[in-house]
């Protein structure tokens, strides 16, 4: 199977006629992603890379029955574009832009939740189910189909891990770019039920980092509901301390929430295998899969 994106995905590209939009639509088409429409206001009626372009997402959905959208739009327009996709009834929306105002995403996330829409990103590479469909701009050549379900706050750490996994012959079911921003549309914990349910996924990999408590919340869920083995890496143990957020930062983090130590502890206690580097992630996964086979 794989989750979120696959052969059933009918994708809209918002911002298809922009520089990045065009380049990566070409890449997605080449990978076999079913891109059914593009949206650029004012360019409705044209075609881009053979794909029909519409002025609005709603028109695109009505004409093509699209069920996913990826946003190649600048950060300052992300809110309007995401809201348009949410309002048009798209159930899966992937945002990529860096430097998106946090409060914009905060509102988009709430509207998406109200509608039951799955919103990913921003500051994400997208989502890929290797061999089936890619939605985003990840360097797809390093991904291979297989049993590892992976989600990562960091694109680069994900690539590194996937590259080594694939080199050792271990493919991936679905890889999700959670995104590196303060408030991601969807976080680890919300995707764990899907990976737990997915038949293709045998091992779950979580690549987290310092800050926030997404990893701690994932640990709680894992302890209660996840029976598949989970490997986790927390980046940033030696990162320079950020200048603090006034007194408020110290007040909120008084219990150690957000530190690499706290996250590793929570995940370890939930039965996860804690990796010390991307290379170590791969070693642990390899060991777990070998164990599975015997």
């Amino acid at each position, binding site marked *: 199977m794989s989750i979120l994106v696959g052969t059933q995905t009918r994708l809209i590209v918002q911002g298809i006629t922009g520089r990045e939009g065009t380049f990566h639509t070409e890449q997605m088409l080449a990978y076999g992603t079913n891109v059914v429409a593009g949206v650029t206001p004012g360019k409705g009626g044209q075609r881009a890379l053979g794909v029909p372009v519409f002025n609005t997402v709603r028109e695109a959905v009505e004409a093509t029955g699209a069920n996913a959208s990826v946003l190649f739009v600048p950060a*300052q327009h992300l809110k309007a574009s995401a809201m348009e996709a949410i309002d048009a009834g798209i159930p899966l929306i992937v945002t990529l832009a*860096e430097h998106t105002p946090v409060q914009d995403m905060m509102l988009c996330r709430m509207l998406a939740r109200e509608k039951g829409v799955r919103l990913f990103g921003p500051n994400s590479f997208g989502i890929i189910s290797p061999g089936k469909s890619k939605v985003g*701009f990840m*360097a797809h050549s390093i991904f291979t189909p297989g049993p590892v379900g992976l989600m990562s706050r960091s694109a*680069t750490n994900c690539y590194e891990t996937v590259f080594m996994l694939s080199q050792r012959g271990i493919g991936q079911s679905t890889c999700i770019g959670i995104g*590196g921003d303060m408030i991601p549309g969807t976080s680890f914990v919300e995707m764990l039920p899907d990976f737990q349910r997915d038949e293709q996924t045998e091992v779950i990999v979580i690549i987290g980092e310092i800050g926030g408590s997404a990893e701690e919340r994932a640990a709680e869920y894992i302890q209660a509901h996840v029976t598949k083995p989970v490997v986790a890496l927390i980046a940033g143990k030696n990162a320079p301390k950020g200048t603090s957020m*006034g007194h*408020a*930062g110290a007040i909120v983090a008084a219990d150690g929430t957000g530190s690499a130590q706290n996250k590793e502890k929570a995940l370890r206690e939930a039965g996860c295998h804690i990796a010390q580097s991307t290379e170590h992630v791969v070693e642990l996964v390899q060991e777990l899969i070998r164990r599975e086979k015997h």
Partner: protein
Amino acid sequence: MKLLEYQAKELFDQYGLATPKGVVLSSGEGAAEAVAAAGLDYPVVVKAQVQVGGRGKAGGVRFAQNPEELAEIVGALLFSSLKGIQVRQLLVVEKVEMAAEWYLSILLDRDAGMPMVIFSPCGGVDIEETARENPGAILKVPVNPLVGVADYTVQYLVSKSGIGGEHLPALKNLLCGLYRLFTQRDCLLAEINPVAVGKDGTLAAVDGKIDVDDSALQRHADLLAMREAHSEPPLVTQARAFRFLYIPVGAEGRVAVMSNGSGMLMSMIDLLSKKEISVACALDLGGGATKDRIREAVRIVLSTPGVDTLFICIFGGITRCDEVAEGVRLALEEGSGGSKVVVRMEGTNKEVGQEIIGRTPQAVSAGGIVEGVRIVSEMLSASAGRRDAK
């Protein structure tokens, strides 16, 4: 972007939150005259405008009883260095009589995905100690941004803290103003500490911190202009001009790390730290780097004092390897004083990129991050060896 105290207070004023009467000095000349012109009565408080914790304990807040003392303090404090940061402005304010000191802030709570109000009737400099030792004295309430600050939010703060129902209207006014500021100005934090409670129940923001979301600065021209007044390392400023994030890590390091994402930078630092290699600085390119931008990035990090080794790790989706390599080549060609660059890249147009690195002196390709760390380590040992041999 963290605002200086006086800048935060400018925003408080804009949003109708009372602040003590004051004046900003950025020159030692005519301090007493400026204070008189602003109508301040002595004694006054002179506050160094720097973004450091424990400013008071470091001597950054002083009291002047008369113009002579003021001139003396201004002379000593202005353009001095406080915890390594140059003091470029002083804020002089009247001393405020306080019947009580409260703490009030709004923080963007990343876990709840919404703003959180933090309030305590025990505000002031010891608030963090209170948070550790008497957490019950600190109230935290989420605010649904689709609703805003509701009556019940304020009612809760008043009722639970026990400050007394008579304070409800003034606290509501203060919180609503602060919340408008928080949302309209894209804040990550808007903090007032202390809130001075006057004997007549009036509330004033005696000190404050505001942190504005960098990603939203483009839509606040007036806030963007406030950055001019900030003291920050010149390389951070240079990097920002290209929308890079330059992060000073450790003063002792010879190695700089560069990547197209903070996750990988953290992994690189974690791996180098394991080999006991100190990192001097890190640079986050962001996505979509072209050869020109890479060239600038390499130039900036290599101009860090003491740095002679750069480790670049690019696993590109949106970044293309040929552009990265070309940027490195250009930067080294323009002169880099013999610095070495180790480049690990993967992604679009990888082969072209590696070919370019292959024919660039001073640059080496690495097959993976672990191999890259090994090469960096060997380079450092070798050059240390060469130095030793001389």
